[in-house]
């Protein structure tokens, strides 16, 4: 492995490749910060440029955009409650609250540090264990995915700080919105009302922008000017105690993210949600979550960056893209005549190890770029809100439109803004909604596929060990969450 890493670094540290890495990382950070415009659109736009470059340089640049966007996405999540990337949604929960309490600098710094640590570890994983990890990921088939999604949905209840009933209601509502579109298994269109833009379902960005970012603007506009401005901008760097609290969360998040990121499909978003759930569960002070707990930022941020690195593994080892962005990178490789798959490690070691090494270089560049910028970002918060929010609004609309060149999406975002505002007024939270929206359809798809493959036999879910364990865990978690509230109601009833 050391020899391989030597080859890799030798290839990655040439002036040309360093330059492309820098461009990719900068671009990635920039589009991660701009809400809505994501790495998918950017990589698609830059694909033609890579036709002129050699394979390694183009992959380095495109990969840089991808994980750079993860860094940038957390910035808007923390500053203005706008998730730049789907996996940054969880960072909004506590990160934004930290910013409102004047601790934006700490939040941004911890996010960057956690992401860097996770990136390094993720890359080590790839270097040391890629083929082994790939074969593990192959054990995850439809029944296991179903069980994992089920577990995720139950865990979503934990995300809620208030009433369990309201959280369940939001999950179900999210599930229902997730049903919109064409059903994979039967070809039936559901809830599309003949609108062709809805045939493929509602895009995640549309929902997230409306529910989180724009609804927050509405709520902020309700308050008077003085209440809105953040009282003091605190320190730009986390305090010792904050670092001490954050480190264990970073490590846990990294492990979780590295493992879940390998799973093609729902892995990336699950890793940040799972990390948040874990932190809240094992924390000494769970009620602090949702009000600015630093573990709620450190854990998920590390998880999503670790996941971003390890999501390359299925591509580089099996030739399977884990998500649409990696599919684009795969397209770029194919055009260069490199067939992604098991052969790549053996036939093109310079490419494989060069890419791995440059991912580390890119992470290093990103943290060097991002840490000093924290001061700049925090100054943005000082801008009077009446100038800030129209800017955010414009960027949001452009971002939502740019996903599919569809104005219907922008109208939908407006609808979701209203929904988010109403939800806030009714004391319901949006994170469970989002999780239901993402996991529900995946869960259904995997369940029905499992049934198709087992000829309708539901026992397949319990016969396979991994899926049986996950389902048992889900039921256990559900019981743990519901029983205390049942006991409380009983006590209240008895008292009367």
């Amino acid at each position, binding site marked *: 492995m050391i020899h391989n890493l030597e080859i890799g670094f030798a290839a990655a540290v040439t002036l040309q490749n360093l330059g492309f890495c820098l461009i990719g990382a900068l671009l990635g950070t920039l589009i991660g910060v701009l809400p809505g415009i994501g790495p998918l659109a950017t990589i698609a736009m830059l694909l033609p440029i890579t036709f002129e470059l050699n394979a390694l340089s183009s992959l380095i640049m495109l990969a840089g955009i991808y994980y750079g966007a993860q860094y940038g996405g957390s910035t808007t999540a923390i500053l203005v409650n706008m998730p730049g990337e789907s996996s940054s949604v969880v960072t909004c929960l506590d990160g934004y609250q930290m910013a409102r309490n004047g601790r934006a600098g700490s939040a941004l710094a911890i996010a960057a540090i956690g992401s860097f640590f996770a990136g390094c570890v993720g890359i080590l994983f790839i270097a040391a264990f890629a083929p082994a990890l790939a074969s593990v990921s192959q054990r995850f088939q439809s029944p296991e995915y179903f069980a994992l999604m089920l577990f995720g949905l139950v865990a979503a209840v934990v995300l809620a700080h208030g009433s369990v009933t309201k959280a369940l209601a939001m999950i179900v509502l999210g599930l229902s919105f997730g049903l919109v579109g064409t059903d994979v298994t039967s070809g039936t269109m559901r809830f599309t009302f003949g609108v062709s833009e809805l*045939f*493929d379902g509602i895009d995640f960005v549309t929902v997230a922008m409306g529910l989180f970012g724009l609804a927050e603007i509405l709520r902020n506009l309700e308050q008077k000017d003085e209440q809105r401005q953040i009282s003091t901008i605190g320190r730009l760097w986390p305090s010792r105690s904050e670092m001490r609290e954050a480190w264990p969360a970073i490590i846990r998040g990294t492990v979780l993210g590295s493992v879940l990121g390998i799973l093609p499909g729902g892995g990336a978003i699950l890793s940040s949600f799972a990390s948040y759930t874990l932190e809240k569960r094992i924390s000494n002070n769970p009620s602090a979550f949702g009000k600015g707990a630093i573990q709620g930022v450190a854990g998920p941020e590390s998880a999503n960056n670790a996941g971003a690195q390890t999501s390359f593994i299925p591509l580089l080892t099996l030739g*399977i893209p884990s998500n649409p962005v990696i*599919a684009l990178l795969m397209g770029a490789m194919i055009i260069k005549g490199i067939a992604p798959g098991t052969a790549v490690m053996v036939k093109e070691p310079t490419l494989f190890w060069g890419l791995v090494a440059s991912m580390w270089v890119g992470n290093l560049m990103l943290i060097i770029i991002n840490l000093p910028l924290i001061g700049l970002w925090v100054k943005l918060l000082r801008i009077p809100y009446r100038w800030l929010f129209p800017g955010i609004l414009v960027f949001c609309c452009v971002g939502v439109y740019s996903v599919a060149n569809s104005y219907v999406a922008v109208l939908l975002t407006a609808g979701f803004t209203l929904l988010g505002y109403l939800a806030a007024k009714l004391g319901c939270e949006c994170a469970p909604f989002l999780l239901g929206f993402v996991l529900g359809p995946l869960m259904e798809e995997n369940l029905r*596929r499992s049934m198709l493959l087992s000829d309708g036999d539901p026992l397949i879910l319990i016969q396979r060990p991994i899926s049986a364990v996950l389902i048992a865990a889900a039921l256990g978690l559900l019981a743990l969450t519901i029983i205390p509230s049942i006991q409380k109601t009983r006590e209240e009833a008895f008292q009367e």
Partner: protein
Amino acid sequence: MMNRRSLLAASLLAPFVGPAAADSRYPSHTVTVISPFAAGGQSDSVGRVVNNHFQKVLGQPFILENKVGAGGTIGAQYVVRSQPDGYTLLLGTTSSFTIAPYVYKPQPYDPVANVAPIAALTEAPTVLLASERSGFKNLNDLVQIAKKEPGRVTVASAGIGSFPHVFSEVFSSLLGVQFNHVPYRGGGPAMNDILAGQVDVFFEVITTAAPQIQVKRAYGLLVTGNGRSALLPDVPTCTELGYPGMNLTSWSGLAAAAGTPAAIVDVLNKEANVVLQSHEMKDLLTQLGIGPVGGSPAKMAERIAQEASLYKDIISKRQIAVQ
């Protein structure tokens, strides 16, 4: 004030003056080529080479825009409904021209009546891929088991009404076997499950299938096309195996809305044929393992009509619908 206002009004109205003057020289401004599938796909890279050539020779920007959704019908519909003036073109595939319009209900457009073909560009052989776990090393193995136990063999597809799905229906009707169809969201997840062994077979385009067969992670049972593929010299063609009726490829072509002036169609057709012979295109196609088609608009129309009637028949017989 008056001057500024009239200037503003004039600039707002200027675009509407366009069409009347456009006939004089085509193209006189930017042409948009719509790709109805996600960026980074095969047809995209071919499309970009074609666009670059058009831009060089015809002197106006040719921009590739991705309008994804609904199996390619959103992008195709957009072109079909646009002005037939040659400034909105479609970079379509087999699915756009012969399958999707018959699968999606209500019919989004008629590929024979509403589309003006310009030139067929490339065609890709389809490979019948079998997972390692299935144990099917050649076509015979598959047919034997499938006939003995109907519904036991599972076939993956990229979704209801996708090319792999419809092709598998053609296959099953020609061979008289019954499959258990398992749809996925696109080719990627389907390929993943083939490699994991969760599904038995998959009809995939050669570019993504060949690497897996070459490293022995899956078996290739047959290829379509007019001869064995250079990427997979050991895999027999469907014609060799005795099923010439299955010789259907996945092809791409340029088209516009019906009613586009013949002069414009001819110019684009001529240049498309030129670029297909270029070095750059030949290199790209060899890498992707696909072949050029070319030919006249009439030939493309003939191909559309032929394949559309074949696919339409199987789609209605097997009741494949997205509604």
